[in-house]
Each structure stands twice: as structure tokens, then as C-alpha cells.
């Protein structure tokens, strides 16, 4: 009789390849296992609105005094000061330092990484 035609996995198993560690790779990475030179684009969390307390205090004063500006001069002054301070803060914050939350937005991270890329080969 001709040799019986066993399925391929049977022959491979019997030959002891699996036990000799000749198996297909457990990991088949779709991409190279190295750090890329960019990060994914993340939606940056927007900052909160500034000067809301001063604004609400001023509006309460307006409601009491029928929207005249003369009795509310103090509240209006504090509101203006707060707005000026927030504007200065916004102007002064350097783009390359961390934001108020301690994060760098992904665009800036990508710029930095492009300047200092991963070295893939030594010449």
C-alpha cells in the first residue's frame, strides 16, 4: 500500500518540530518595533474661562442698581483688573514651556521630536 497521506500538521507534529521550538513566530508586529518620530494627534483640552466670579459679582451689582454704572464702579474696576491680568498672562506664557495643566500639545511635541529624531543607523 502507498504511504498514508496524513495532514500537514500531523507530520509536523510527529517530526518534533514544535517541541524543538521551530514554531511560527508568536509575535508578528505589523510595524517596526521602534519609537516613531511623532506622537498621535490628541484633542487638546481647552482652558477654562477666566474672570467668571468677577463678572457674576458685577452682574449682581447691576441687577441691584438697575444697570447703572455709577454705583457699581468698584466691581467694574475689579473686573477690568482681572481681565487685564488674564490678558497679560496669556501673552506672557511662552509657547515652548508647559501649559498651565502641565501638558505640551501634540503639535509642539512633534516639532521637538523632528529636531531630535531616533537614530536608525550608525554611519
Amino acid at each position, binding site marked *: 500500500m502507498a504511504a498514508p497521506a496524513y495532514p500537514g500538521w500531523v507530520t509536523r507534529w510527529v517530526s518534533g518540530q514544535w517541541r524543538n521550538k521551530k514554531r511560527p513566530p508568536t509575535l508578528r508586529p505589523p510595524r517596526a518595533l521602534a519609537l516613531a518620530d511623532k506622537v498621535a494627534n490628541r484633542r487638546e483640552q*481647552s*482652558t*477654562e*474661562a*477666566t*474672570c*467668571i466670579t468677577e*463678572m*457674576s459679582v*458685577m*452682574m449682581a451689582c*447691576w*441687577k441691584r442698581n438697575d*444697570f*447703572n*454704572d*455709577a454705583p457699581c464702579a468698584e466691581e*467694574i474696576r475689579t*473686573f477690568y483688573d482681572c*481681565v487685564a491680568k488674564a490678558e497679560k498672562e*496669556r501673552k506672557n506664557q511662552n509657547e515652548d514651556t508647559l501649559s498651565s495643566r502641565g501638558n505640551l500639545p501634540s503639535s509642539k511635541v512633534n516639532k521637538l521630536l523632528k529636531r531630535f529624531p531616533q537614530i536608525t543607523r550608525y554611519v
Partner: protein
Amino acid sequence: MAAPSAAGLGRRLRAWLPRIMPVRWSRYNPSYLEPEVKKESHQKPLEELTEEEREQMELKAVRPIKAAPPSLSSSVFSDPMISKFTNMMMKSGNKVLARSLMSQTLEAIKRKQLEKYHKAPENEKETIECNPYVIFHQALKNCQPIIGLSNITRGGKTYQVPVPLTDNRKRFLAMKWLITECRENKHRRTLMPEKLSQELLLAFNNEGPVIKRKHVLHKMAEANRAYAHFRWW
């Protein structure tokens, strides 16, 4: 078929001729310095200048200086706010007419206030303000809104969010409201200086339709104060 290609051609032509097409910003070399118009700064003796002023003088000796625009004047009578107001009143570049209207307005204010002054009893005479420039500035200050509304779209719906305004924007709104009020809501046959002087005097006393419009804006901002958190600046 022809319209999009014509627009695209125009845009491409403009990109190709960056120096020939008219642009809105200034085309001076960045090394050009601003002209100094105030007489006092030129009459200061050399010893009184501080370090940085001395450096500035030395810089001016080597760098070219931009031409002074015709609206910039070293006269004691020139006022930047009045110039801005005149420019906003101007139509089709007729600065002569706008300037004459402005001077007639100031004269009308002075006349009205003098009339009131001479008719008033002795004890009230000091309270009447006769300087038209003071009245103009105070009226503008009273008309300036403190908080504005801006449209912010969230989730498909547009909300009116109360927002602080910059100084320039406040001044612009005050002047714009005054001028539109005079142009649109008055009798056809009254002349502009007459209407403007009336509006300015009302605004000086915190009355009148422009002040009412400011209050309406404040009320709307107050009604929408719940949306103030939609701001991100």
C-alpha cells in the same frame, strides 16, 4: 465655468506678483523707525534724557524714519479720539466734510452749554461743563459697553456668550452706536452737527438712546451669564 477659473487666475496672479498688487499693511523695511511728533521730546536738553532715551537718539541717527502720515499732528489741538471719530463719520474719503462737521458739532455743543450757563443761577454755574472736548470724552466713556456678546457654537447650536471686550473694541462700539443713532433714527432734515451735539449732551448726562442700547446689551449679557463657561479664553 468662467467664474471659478477667473477667480483662481486672479489668486494665482496675486501670488505671483506679491510686490505689485495693492496690500493693506505697510511695506516699509523693518529697519524704519516711527516718527516722533511731540515737540516736548525734541526740546528736552541732553542731560535730562535717561539711558534708553539716549540709545534711542543714537539709533535714530543711523536708521531711516518712516514718513509721518497726514493724520498725525504735533498741534496741541489735535486729539486722537476726535480724529478717529471724524474718520468714522467720513464717507467716500471726504475728510474735508467730515472735519467740518466735527468742528461744527463741537461749536454747537459749546453754544448750547454757554446758553445753559448764562441762564443758570449763580450757585449752579460751576456745575455746567462748557468744554466741548471734555463733554465729548465723557460722553464716549459713558457709552462704552463693559461686556459684550460673542457667538460660540457648541453641539450645533450657537449661543450668545458674555465676553470681556478690549479697549479698542469698546471705543469703536461707542463711536459706531453714536454715529448710526444720528444717521438713522433722527428726522431727515436735521443736520448732522445738530443731531450729534444733541446725542453727545444726552450721553454726557447718561441719558439718551445710545446709553439705552448699552444697557440693552448689558441686560442680554446678564441674561446669558449661564453660558459664560463656554468661553475658552
